Each structure stands twice: as C-alpha cells, then as structure tokens.
C-alpha cells in the first residue's frame, strides 16, 4: 500500500476530502469540548426554556434551558467514546480470532462457525440482551456493540491474512524459525492493515448509529448525560412545540455517521478495491 497514492486519491474525491475534513473537525471538537463549548452543557437557564435556534443560544435550548450547541459538542465526546471503545474492544478480539483462524487451519472451521453464529444475530439483539442483563446504560451498549463487531472483524482479518499468508516471504520467514506470534505481529498484521482500517472506518459509523439508537430507546446513555441519541429521545416529547430539540442532535448523528461512511467508502476505493462489495 502506498500512502502518498492514497492521500492523492482522497484529495481528488471531493466528497472524501470533505468528509475527511469533517471527521477531523468532529474528533477535534469532541476532544476539545471543555474548551470550545460556549456554555456549560448542564447549566439550566430557567428563563430560556426551549428557545429556538438563532437567538442568544446559537442552536437554541432544550426543555431544561440548556444550551443545545454545547450539549451536542459534549455529546460528540460521549458518542465517539462509545463508538471507539466498542470498535477497539470488538476489533481486537475479532482480529485475534481472524489471525488464529488464518494461521491455525485446524481451528479455522470451529472459529469461523462460531463467528457465523454470532453473525446470525443482529446487533440490536445483543443490545437488548445486554441491557436486560446489566440494566440500561452506556456499558451495556459498549459490550453489545463490541460483541457484534467481533465476527465482522474476524472475517475481514481472516480473509486478508489468508492472502498475505500465501506470499513467499511468509514461508521464508517461517523457515527461519520465527515464532507464530512474532510472525503475525511483524509480517502478517502490517500487511492486513488497510482492510482493517477501511472496515474500522465504516464500522465506526454503524456502531455510532446503533449506539445512538439504543440510547434513543432508553437502553444506553442515561439522562442527564449529554449523548446525542438520548438528547433526541428527550426532545421527542416536545417535537410539536420545539422540534429543534430532537432534530438538531439527530442531524448531528446523521452528519457524523455520513462522514464516516463516505470516508470509509473512499478509503476502500483508494486502499483496497477488492473489498468493494
């Protein structure tokens, strides 16, 4: 994989460039939330309940007189955290399974059957089950999304690793008596990075979408935590009086997920055309 080529391709595609810029901005905003949010996301202004956007409060206020813009910025933090943690947790386990399946062919059948089984259940079911067991909350959502990510990552990694394993230099490295773990770490994994990267970008969008849906249902982040799905859910009660309370956080989720999806597609085209489904 050639990095300059990737970058060039990304910049040539306007949508990809825009989405890359947007993703960067979103991540930066989430990290810098305490410094860039104009107001305290939890402070209530009882004289400014459900203010429409455009006044003193740029994006308006919610039912408790809290600044929606600040809550969205802090909400990004929670949402991205939720997405990243579940992606990393599920991704690491999934990648380990994938490598193991590719490396130890005897395990392949069992492991991939197991992954098929996991894959046959929709992520929302994991969300429901985990919330039933541990009670609604961010932790339940993160665990559920991690579990749902494992089989997907395992498949991607196994596929990529099998291709790499067929290469001559792996055989050569193996012949030198390199340990399996070292072999994977030094030679196989680095060559599987691009599909992993592409998948992760696309998956992050999906994970955020799912997580915010679970929060919207009340199974995820709990009030008063500023989380975009939970904010939309609370605002739903005032949909006919002050639609902006739920529409703005929903739009924010849409924009972030769209950016990750467009970026992921572009990355896939640039890095790994084979992955095109």
């Amino acid at each position, binding site marked *: 994989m050639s990095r300059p080529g990737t970058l060039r391709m990304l910049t040539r595609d306007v949508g990809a460039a825009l989405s890359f810029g947007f993703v960067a901005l979103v991540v930066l905003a989430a990290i810098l939330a305490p410094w860039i949010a104009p107001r305290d996301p939890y402070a209530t202004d009882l004289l400014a309940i459900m203010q429409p956007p455009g006044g003193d409060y740029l994006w308006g206020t919610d039912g408790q007189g809290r600044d929606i813009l600040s809550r969205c910025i802090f909400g990004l933090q929670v949402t991205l955290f939720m997405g990243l943690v579940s992606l990393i947790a599920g991704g690491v386990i999934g990648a380990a399974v994938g490598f193991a399946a590719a490396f130890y062919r005897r395990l392949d059948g069992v492991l991939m059957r197991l992954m098929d089984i996991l894959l046959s259940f929709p992520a929302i079911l994991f969300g429901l089950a985990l919330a039933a067991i541990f009670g*609604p909350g961010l932790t339940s959502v993160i665990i559920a999304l991690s579990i749902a990510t494992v089989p997907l990552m395992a498949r991607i990694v196994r596929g990529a690793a099998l291709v790499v394993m067929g290469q001559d230099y792996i055989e050569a490295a193996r012949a030198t008596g390199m340990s399996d773990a070292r072999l994977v770490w030094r030679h196989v994994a680095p060559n599987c990075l691009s599909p992993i990267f592409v998948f992760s970008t696309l998956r992050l969008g999906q994970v955020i979408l799912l997580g915010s849906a679970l929060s919207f249902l009340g199974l995820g982040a709990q009030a008063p935590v500023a989380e975009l799905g939970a904010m939309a859910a609370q605002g739903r009660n005032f949909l006919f009086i002050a639609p902006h309370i739920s529409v703005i956080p929903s739009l924010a989720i849409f924009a972030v997920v769209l950016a990750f999806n467009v970026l992921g597609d572009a990355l896939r085209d640039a890095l790994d055309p084979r992955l095109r489904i």
Partner: protein
Amino acid sequence: MRRYALQRLALAAPVLLGVLLIGFLLMQVVPTDPATVRAGPQATAEVVAAIRTELGLDEPIWTQFFLYLSRLAQGDLGVSIINSVPVTQELGATIGPTLELMFAALIWSIPLGILLGTLAAYWRGSWFDRITMAVSVAGVSLPVFFLGLVLIWIVGFQYQLLPFTGRGGPLWTMDGFLAVILPAVTLGGVFVGPVARMTRTAVVDSLTADHVRTARAKGLSEFRVVLRHALRNALIPVVTLIGLQIGFLLGGAVVTETIFSWPGVGRLAVGAILSADFPMAQGTIIVLSAGFIVINLTVDLLYAVLDPRVRLS
C-alpha cells in the same frame, strides 16, 4: 443438497439450545430478585419466600434449567412480573403487528431498491448513478428515529395527512392501511439504500460475466442485457444479502415501533427491559433469536437451492 440441509439443521439445533441457555442464565444473573419485584414494596419476607417457591427459584440451578426447558416445550415462557400475563400470550399478540410492519416496509422498499440499483448499474457513471449512490449512502447513515420523527412532525402533525399513533387494525382495512403507511415509510426508508447499493454492485459484477458478454455480442440492446441477463443473475446474491439484512431491519423495527406506538415485539422487548420485567424480556429475546436462527437457515437453504455451486459442494 440433503446433506447440506441436514448439516445446516444440525448446526442450528445447538445454537438454539445455546440461546435458550443464555436466556435462562439471563434470569439467573439479573440483579433484581424476581420474587421481590413481584411481591411489591409492602410485602413481608414470608410473601417473598412463598413467591420464590412458586417460581421455583429455590431449586438447584440444573433442575431449574430442565424445568425451564420442559416448560418451554409446552410453550410456557413464564408470566410477566408486572401484570402476570403469560409471556407467550403477549408475544402471540405482538408478533403479528411486527411481521405486518416488516412486510409493509419491505413490500415497497425492496422493489424500489432493486429498481434504483438496476438503473444505476445500467447508467453506471451517470449523474443518476451518482445521485442514487449518494442517496443510498445517506440512507445508510440516517438514524431511523430521525426519519420517523420528521415524518411524524411534518406529515402527521403539521399537515395531519396520516395517523401515527399506533396500529389501526388489520392491514387490509382502511384504518389499518393508513396507520401502517408512516411506520412502513420510516422503516423501509432506511432499507432502500442498502438494497439499491447491493443490487447495483451485483448487476455491475454480472455484466462482466461471460454469458452476458455473449448476449451483448448477439446484438441485444444494453437495456435487455441488463434486465434479462445481468439482473437475473444478480438476484441470487441480492436475495441472500436481503435475507442477511433482516437483522438490520429488526433494529429499525424496534425503533420504529417505539416512536409510532406500534404494538410489536420490539416495543414489548424495550418496555420489558426498561421495567425490569425479566421473564418478558427473556421471552422476547428468545423468540427474536429463534426467529433469526430460522431466517438464517431459510436463507442458507434458499441460497443452496438457487445457486448450483453450493448445491453440488
């Protein structure tokens, strides 16, 4: 073929047992004691103990699991902690509306998705293709609740064109039909994009297949080539992928049911979880899981029937 089917069935059985075991264990690890919840705040220790015995909560765990399986075999999933209604009864009442909603969502979104995908493949590279694909990416990124809320707000409330307050009756009645429109548009709306995308990819792929090239060489118009040859071949992977996307549809259905007060399994499940009604939550999760095992099995077998390569292997 029979061997393949048996193989698949043999795999489905232990998975189902696993789901049941997990469902059972769910009841064991829940932080709230079902007996206490059921007894209510005023209950004395004796009342709680009596309920514990009644629910079989004092038996050894394996005995409890076998009791549980035998009850399950008789269609007994327990009773709701909250209103003592049998779980199977509630499930029986909610499965219909959920299937109804899914049907109403798919009946328009799959044909539309296939149409858009085929046209995009036919005019690949054109502005139509670009827009369709852009819209489908947007569709995949759209939170279901957002679409639902906007429809409720504008169509339901501002212009009062269609109801959005739950099921109006069976689909074939006027009330039932009108009531299902907005939920079906919401749920189907997020499904058109993926279907269009999958169809386009599959059709484009099959356009490079040999027999399509042959057809083209015979001088058939591109439109006929796409429709007669490419789409027909592409339908197999598309059908399979749609089958696999049913999971995605379920996620949407849970949200759609919640915002439209649709009396389906998804809303029942969410309500049960939020109110810590564990038997009900467990029942809904088991039924949904079992549903997915069956769906996957069906899709696998269907795929085997449709695709000779699988049949022979």
